């Protein structure tokens, strides 16, 4: 049953939960997360290990591990990605939804020339001839600034540097001009000057092609460079959400404030010690009855341990889930 498209959102995620069956019982990785992405918008999802940030992307892409279950809805161009039969999802993934990963080497076929790997998608999903697809692939490699692209297209993945491989992945993902690109820590493995190149490239191409991006990262700097809007995730739940500039300028949630204080900078006045968040990120286990951040929060109230704070509006287009900053 086709759903009617909601407003002007490209993607509308409602109560997305992801859990895994483990030998010791079920583990909830993502807990009732809701968000939207507009066409051409760059949304950052930031969080530490175990926050569930990558699992959100995997579940949208239909790539959850076999012991994983997803519930909720993810309406993309009027259809629910989570309820689609595999065949239909395949068609969406090839044409309007793409994903890039932290390690491009594991997503490239080592036995196939790079040009052939790029062309394959176009032949399969767009019905181009072999020659047309090859030409489009070379063009795209030029656009992601692979030097001497026509010759490079005949080479194999291991003959590319790490930064070039990630640009090949981006070329491959954007070749079909997807409406939405899911990017899971795309620059984490790269050196800093190469990371800057890849981030610039993603920003340029997103603008040119009009592709929306969901960028998952642990790096607040990367979010600041690329994203219009930010979701701060902790323990599988959204702690805070809003446009990048006000969120970084006046973070509302104690976790966002802690993360920003713990991130050393090049420019600020030096402090004798970095800000810290006590304890360690949640690693598995059952969901807590209260706020997932409560065990590490330095300003918690008794209610934080027992009652989950709802995600409540705190400003223009901003929400936060904290008993201290909520509507109260």
């Amino acid at each position, binding site marked *: 049953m086709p759903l009617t498209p909601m407003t002007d959102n490209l993607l509308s995620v409602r109560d997305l939960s992801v859990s895994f069956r483990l030998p010791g019982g079920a583990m909830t990785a993502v807990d009732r997360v809701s968000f939207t992405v507009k066409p051409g918008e760059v949304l950052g999802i930031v969080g530490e290990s175990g926050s569930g940030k990558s699992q959100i992307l995997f579940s949208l892409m239909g790539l959850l591990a076999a012991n994983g279950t997803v519930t909720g809805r993810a309406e993309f161009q009027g259809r629910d990605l989570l309820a689609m039969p595999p065949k239909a999802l395949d068609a969406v993934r090839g044409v309007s939804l793409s994903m890039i990963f932290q390690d491009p080497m594991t997503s490239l076929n080592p036995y196939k020339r790079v040009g052939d790997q790029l062309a394959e998608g176009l032949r399969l999903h767009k019905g181009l001839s072999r020659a047309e697809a090859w030409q489009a692939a070379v063009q795209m490699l030029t656009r992601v600034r692979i030097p001497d692209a026509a010759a490079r297209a005949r080479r194999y993945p291991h003959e590319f540097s790490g930064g070039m491989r990630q640009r090949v992945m981006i070329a491959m993902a954007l070749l079909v001009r997807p409406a939405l690109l899911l990017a899971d820590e795309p620059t984490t493995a790269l050196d800093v000057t190469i990371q800057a190149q890849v981030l610039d490239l993603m920003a340029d191409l997103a603008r040119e092609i009009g592709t929306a991006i969901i960028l998952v990262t642990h790096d607040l700097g990367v979010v600041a460079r690329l994203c219009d809007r930010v979701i701060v995730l902790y323990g599988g739940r959204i702690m805070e959400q809003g446009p990048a500039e006000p969120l970084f300028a006046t973070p509302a949630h104690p976790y966002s404030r802690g993360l920003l204080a713990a991130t050393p900078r090049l420019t600020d006045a030096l402090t004798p010690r970095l*800000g*810290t968040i006590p304890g360690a990120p949640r690693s598995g286990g059952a969901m807590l009855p209260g706020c997932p951040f409560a065990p590490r929060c330095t300003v918690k109230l008794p209610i934080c341990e027992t009652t989950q704070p709802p995600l409540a509006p705190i400003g223009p287009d901003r929400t936060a889930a904290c008993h201290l900053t909520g509507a109260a």
Partner: protein
Amino acid sequence: MTLLQTRNLDVGYRIPGPGLLSKPRILPIVHDVTLSLPPGQTLGIVGESGCGKSTLGRALIRLIEPTGGQVLWDGTDLALIPDLRRRRAELQIIFQDPVAALDPRMTLGRLISRPLATFQPGLSRADLAARAADALGRVGLSGDFAARYPHELSGGQAQRVGIARALVGRPRLIVCDEPVSALDVSIQAQVVNLLMDLQETEGLALVFISHNLAVVRHISHQVMVMCLGRVVEHAPRDAFYAKPLHPYSQALMKAVPEPDPARERSRTGQSLPGELASVLNPPAGCVFARRCPRVQPRCHTDRPALRDFGGRQAACHFIEA
């Protein structure tokens, strides 16, 4: 006063010769490094993959034999210290992946105290256990960690154990090779603060190797920037971050994304083009010439020497004194 010093240090790796029967060759990695580190201070070494920063770090404590030049430890040539194995307690190292450095079948207590059996062979079992518990305490872990195994540790705890193991012999220098790169940002801050606390209380000297310029700024007294095995800039921390002189240092600084959206928006589209160079194919002139935005013909043929600019050094033909 100087604790650690190098004079024109070269480091390379032995690799097989070109033919089946030809002699092995030396592949030079690090060239001509001269530095000096007083007790209780931190030298930050920054650079991208393949710049030789880890190789230099290992050579500083003679885990790799230098191929030229000298390392002086407390004024004595490290190569001439007769009983270096015993003295190793003074020169320690911690790594990016501490779990890989820990035997999975040993308890943490034994892992931490084991180096002591080499440094001070006379210690009793009870002494060893007490020293391990003491080291755990100094890195902020409770004594019951002594009975646990490496796989039970989170990333931050594992790095603390790595530090405890380095601390147990009461070192004067710890080489820290990307110690926080694999950690979550909240844990990274905890470990950086711990290292700074330990430096303060124990007078430790640190060599802090990292690709993260912001972390290095926080912890270092002096900063060394390496590119393809050579030092391109070496300066006191505040002078360096206020105004990096070398075009490569400037490019690195500009490339670091900062958690400040307004500032970052103004910087998109300014990334440095080109790929990292490889030691297998080093340029004849300046190591940075192929990517340098201010490159001149001379840079491709004529290698710039490190020059002095009032208490700091940089290797570029075109810096105004």
